[in-house]
């Protein structure tokens, strides 16, 4: 039937037009390419492909990690295949895949998923010379994980709603009447769970639980994650929130001058100033442990450490790289980094305590 044919062709023309519009739109928005970002890490000519391939599961986001992996591939000639997703989801996937996983390297945003994988014996051992790239605080004694950047807990606040004199020195001040209904907690978020687990470790479970209950009684407000708190603080929806430090720098840089939220560092000795690391691991099932170790070492190399702090404002952990200029110096921190190994089954109990506190149900 000719009319039918005509319609089909018509439809094709439309589809092609639609694709063109999409392509044009994308093209008109194109700015610097990620290739550009990769060249800030490695600008030499690419090595010839070695034919080696490794697979990475990355809980760190694509925009951030892709340039690093591109630079690694270019410099070493090792092909890298990546799956980006939420760290928790990737940990579940790794647990499901067990010894049949394709993944050689797993990068986690927070310690929780690492602890989970360690409890299932799914993490392999990182080479000793790679482990030596960081200080003892920032790696596992058993050699199963290594930190490659640090994120500090801070209080983010709205500059129009919180006076400079009001800013607290300790998270314990936030249970005061003066802060009723003004403070936000990302209570179920991975980094908060990690932080609270260390809180329990440092001050005892009773003190930590009491603090959380007091916060709930003081009408602390729950948000699902750090980012939504920083965004809400910038809009003035909340006055202050306990979050990881770097989100606000990112938002600030993205938003330019109109940004209304600032970071406040709690006292150095306060639990609210904890440094939590993001970690790299080699899976126990890895078929290419050499290349996997090579990649982990690459994450700790000078150009990548510099890139991580300049681009996302995280704290570098190796190669003598200094933190980006807008970051307060890290040396002032008194409290050590989270010790995953010592936490043991801590996450499970922490989740239980947070659940019971009722903070997530408002």
């Amino acid at each position: 039937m000719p009319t039918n044919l005509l319609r089909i062709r018509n439809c094709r023309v439309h589809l092609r037009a639609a694709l063109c519009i999409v392509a044009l739109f994308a093209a008109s928005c194109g700015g610097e390419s990620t290739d550009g970002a990769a060249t800030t890490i490695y600008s030499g000519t690419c090595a010839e492909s070695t034919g080696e391939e490794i697979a990475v599961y990355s809980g760190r986001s694509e925009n951030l990690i892709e340039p690093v992996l591109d630079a690694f591939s270019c410099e070493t000639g090792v092909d890298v295949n990546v799956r980006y997703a939420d760290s928790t989801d990737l940990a579940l996937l790794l647990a499901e895949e067990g010894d049949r996983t394709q993944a050689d390297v797993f990068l986690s945003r927070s310690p929780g998923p690492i602890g989970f994988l360690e409890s299932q014996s799914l993490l392999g051992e990182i080479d000793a010379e790679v482990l030596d790239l960081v200080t003892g605080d920032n790696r596992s004694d058993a050699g199963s994980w290594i930190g490659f950047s640090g994120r500090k807990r801070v209080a983010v606040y709205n500059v129009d709603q919180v006076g400079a004199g009001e800013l607290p020195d300790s998270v314990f001040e936030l249970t005061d009447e003066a802060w009723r209904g003004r403070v936000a907690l990302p209570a179920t978020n991975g980094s908060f769970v990690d932080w609270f687990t260390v809180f329990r470790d440092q001050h005892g479970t009773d003190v930590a639980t009491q603090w959380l209950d007091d916060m709930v009684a003081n009408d602390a407000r729950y948000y699902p994650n750090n980012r939504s708190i920083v965004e809400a603080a910038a809009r003035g929806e909340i006055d202050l929130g306990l979050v990881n430090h770097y989100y606000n720098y990112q938002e600030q840089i993205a938003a330019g001058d109109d940004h209304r939220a600032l970071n406040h560092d709690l006292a150095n000795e306060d639990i609210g100033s904890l440094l939590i690391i993001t970690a790299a691991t080699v899976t126990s099932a890895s078929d290419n442990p050499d290349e996997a170790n090579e990649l982990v070492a690459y994450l700790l190399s000078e150009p990548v450490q510099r890139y991580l702090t300049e681009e996302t404002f995280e704290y570098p952990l190796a190669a003598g790289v200094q933190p980006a200029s807008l970051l307060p110096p890290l040396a002032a921190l008194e409290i050590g980094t989270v010790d995953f190994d010592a936490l043991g089954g801590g996450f499970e109990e922490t989740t239980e305590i947070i659940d019971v506190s009722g903070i997530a149900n408002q």
Partner: protein
Amino acid sequence: MTSKRAPWGLQVVGAVTAVAFAFPAAYLVYRNVTSGAERLTLLQSSRTLGPLWRTLQLSVLVSTSAAMLGVCLAWLTVRTDLPGRKFWRTVLPIPLVFPTFIGAAAFRRTLNPGGLANGVLEAVGLDGFELRGLFGAWLVLTLFTYPYVFLPVAARLLRMPGSLEESARVLGDTAPQAFRRIVLPQISGAAAAGTLLVFLYTISDFGAVQLMLYDTLTRAIETNYVARPAIAFALSLLLLALAMVVVAGERRFSGSGNVEVQARTLNPVSYTLGRLSLPASVAVMAAALMSVGAPMIAILDWATDGVLRATRDGRPLTIDTEKVVEASRNTLESSLLAALVAVIVVLPVAYLVGRYRGRIGTVSHAVVIATFAVPGILIALALRFWTLRAGFAGDLLLDTKALLIFAYVIRFGSLALGICLVAVQAVPSRLLDAASTLGAGRLRRLRTIELPLMAPGLLAAVGLVLLSTMKELPISLIIAPLGYRTLTTRIFGSFEEAFVAEAGIMAVILVAMSAVLSWLLILRKADHA
């Protein structure tokens, strides 16, 4: 419709489909059996019952409001002389394509204190308005899910003969009376199927309830995955059980609607709105502004902000055109394939349930529909679990696009089934009987009678699956072959690390693409088929 037994070939196909769709359920059962949680204590605990109760509350509220909104919008844009109705029919399905993590964040960005449209709310006296909790989750989910009702009902209305309505009007029924007595019974099947999907979507949703700070079962599941996996799996099974109960209940009460279509209904009754034209237009516009406009404002704001910020010495844009084009192509390819395969796969089940009696049809229908309540991440994990244990077949599928499409089909096949069922039931059996008396074979009847009559329904089904797949996140992240990126996974990758401008730009592309597709597939084809 009839009490005939289905041909055994169809029964086998139906059974195979049921088994395929039961993969996630079987996985959940296995995980529960192998984990050692004290499930009974867990189920009695108030920390389970609380979220369960909130999930139920929210689902009932959202289904009710989405059903009303969807039916009203469909009737107004199909059966009246509403100005710009074709435009509205293109725009109104768009909320399906907003990934919830972007959509809910966009709502907050637009309406909440300090937000872009919060000034408007303050001007009308809604000072200190904040979207959160039950109200926030209800509003956002209603606005995101009414297309599940709107699309099938509109497809049904397009094919409903005007003769009965005309007779009713001639005999003195007012328009509302005619609607209640004639139209409603005809569309109730489609509306019920759509409403069921809204209900199931709501119980499976995580993105919206999380951002609206409403503590439901899915949030309890999410926080427990890594810390207490046994509890997460037990709660997931509870979620699935709830879905099965609701699906079984719906089948019992809805039965087979006595629907009828005309072979050619190119000019269905069109009501003249007259004085009501203005208020109706305002209402439709308000619905579109809330459901499409509000999130779009935020997305466009992110996008334009990014384009402009280089001038305010912000971070330069990091968008790689080539990669965005590739991701767009992948999104188009995978969602089109998933939509077509989904319709083909569920059509036999629709026939089994719509035309014949038998347990296999009932069971496979229930399994396909109830699977819609399983959160995407669990479907992804389940498929990974089974492919790793499927030996040779699993090795073939592992890390292929075929597995990705299969996962999408399992996740969204339910969306197609409801509409396909209504379409199958709407083919008058006397036409088929007549054709078969005249010696037309099964294939010929399918090609010359059934497919043309079912076309608008089938295309609506394709559209629903298509738009939903385009925004799908967890399966796209976990099951896609290594290195296979879709627009949604790129948006996620940008949004997570405050590259909101990049996320905004790609979201604009996603929405533009879906608008063009829904216009091409649903509107143009449906109107001209």
